[in-house]
């Protein structure tokens, strides 16, 4: 292989035009060295390539670039191959096969495979370019009835993503926690109000579920009394969809009037 730029290892002293951060991995770098110098991939001048590769690593270090462990590992591999190439071939081995195994073979195979995937990536890119130049204008919307509510097209990773987001939210949520031992009926009135505020106007808040979230007897009693107060003042209504069904709260006629049940008054009454 005649290389105009190469005269046996001194090439490493000629700084190649590296963009130091452009290589995704050592295979990328090696392929680029090979391609730039029009080297036959099946007959790599391993000494030259090794010194160029090491020069690259040096340069990267000079520039304080983060060199991944895989680059260092490849350097070791190259040096190892180079040393095996330098060893005189065992005459005994030569009798058996033609040349014995080429120490470069495994590396060549990996490089070839890497090149194939680069080519495959390029092929995909070209296919994508075609797709970016054609358009479709489906008219499904005219034939879908109103009641089919649109939603997300959901896959497995949407599920885990949603779960992650919920957990994130838990972390960042300001905790509206009532100190159990100091909780008052007035606190609970506010709590129930806020629950009804959060709920959509047509969605009931089930008493039982709110009750379950309370962590002390005192809190439960306060909640119960608060609900009674709010019913009395017509800020909430009690609903029961069917006999023995869950009891729910809904906004009452005077829900909007924030002071229908002035907290201070209640506070007084229950002292």
């Amino acid at each position, binding site marked *: 292989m005649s290389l105009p730029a190469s005269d046996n290892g001194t090439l490493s002293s000629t700084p190649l035009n590296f963009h130091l951060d452009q290589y995704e991995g050592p295979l990328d770098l090696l392929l680029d060295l090979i391609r730039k110098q029009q080297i036959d991939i099946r007959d790599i001048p391993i000494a030259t390539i090794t010194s160029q590769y090491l020069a690259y690593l040096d340069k990267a270090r000079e520039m304080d670039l983060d060199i991944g462990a895989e680059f260092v590992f490849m350097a070791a591999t190259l040096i190892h191959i180079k040393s095996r190439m330098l060893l005189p071939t065992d005459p005994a081995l030569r009798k058996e096969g033609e040349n014995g195994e080429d120490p470069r073979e495994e590396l060549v195979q990996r490089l070839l495979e890497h090149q194939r995937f680069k080519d495959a990536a390029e092929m995909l890119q070209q296919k994508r370019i075609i797709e970016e130049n054609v358009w479709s204008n489906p008219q499904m919307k005219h034939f879908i009835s109103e009641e089919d*509510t649109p939603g997300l097209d*959901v896959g497995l990773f949407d*599920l885990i993503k949603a779960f992650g987001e*919920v957990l994130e939210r838990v972390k960042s949520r300001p905790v509206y926690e009532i100190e159990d031992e100091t909780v008052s009926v007035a606190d609970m009135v506010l709590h129930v109000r806020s629950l009804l505020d959060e709920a959509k106007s047509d969605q009931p808040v*089930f008493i039982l*579920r709110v009750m*379950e979230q309370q962590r002390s007897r005192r809190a439960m009693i306060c909640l119960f009394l608060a609900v009674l107060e709010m019913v009395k003042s017509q800020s909430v209504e009690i609903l029961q969809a069917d006999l023995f069904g869950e009891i729910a709260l809904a906004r009452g006629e005077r829900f909007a009037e924030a002071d229908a049940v002035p907290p201070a008054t209640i506070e007084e009454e229950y002292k």
Partner: protein
Amino acid sequence: MGFPEENADEQPDAIQESFSADELLPEEPAVEAITMEDAQLKAVLEAIIYVTDEPLSLEQICTAIEQPRERVIELLEQLAADYERPERGLSIREVAGGFKMTTKPEHHEAVRRFVKNLNPPLKLSLPALETLAVIAYKQPITAPEIMEIRGVQGAGVLKTLIDRKLIGTAGRKQVVGKPILYKTTREFLVQFGLKDLAELPSLKEFQELARFDSEQPGASEPSGEAPRA
């Protein structure tokens, strides 16, 4: 096999297949030439009418294909006539001062039926998706616990998920009020292409993916960005 004869005469166009043999078709349909240039123009005309939702005005078309008005009208008439043939399910109609592609009304019923029977991909609202996610990873779990984790009320979505057969009940929790426990179903596994629940990716795995992904927002800019054409 009788295709009505009169249709043959209506067709002004050479390229359409006229059908039928000797006996059935004594009157030779008039054959009209179409030049390569006309073909190109008609093709572009068809494509732009297809992609545009709003009716395309004559002026817009003239500008687009750089042709005089008369030529465009002629081409449009040819195109519309091609579409009127009974074996075409679409038509190009003049509405509101422009040209628009639509399905032919006589096939609306068939199309509507078809669309209705399409198996839609699993679609869920965001609250439903979140609720399903919480159930999938924390099952069995009660409604109050789900609300606690999600930090919002949302009894409605449980019913949606049950209706879709994605979740089912798993007995009751032995606490005050004996709330119902929910779990995911077999249908859930089928929908998400899972053999069993162990195949669900863990949150840790997911976060690792994000961490290693150099192209995720926040991560360093990847090198060698692919050129765009």
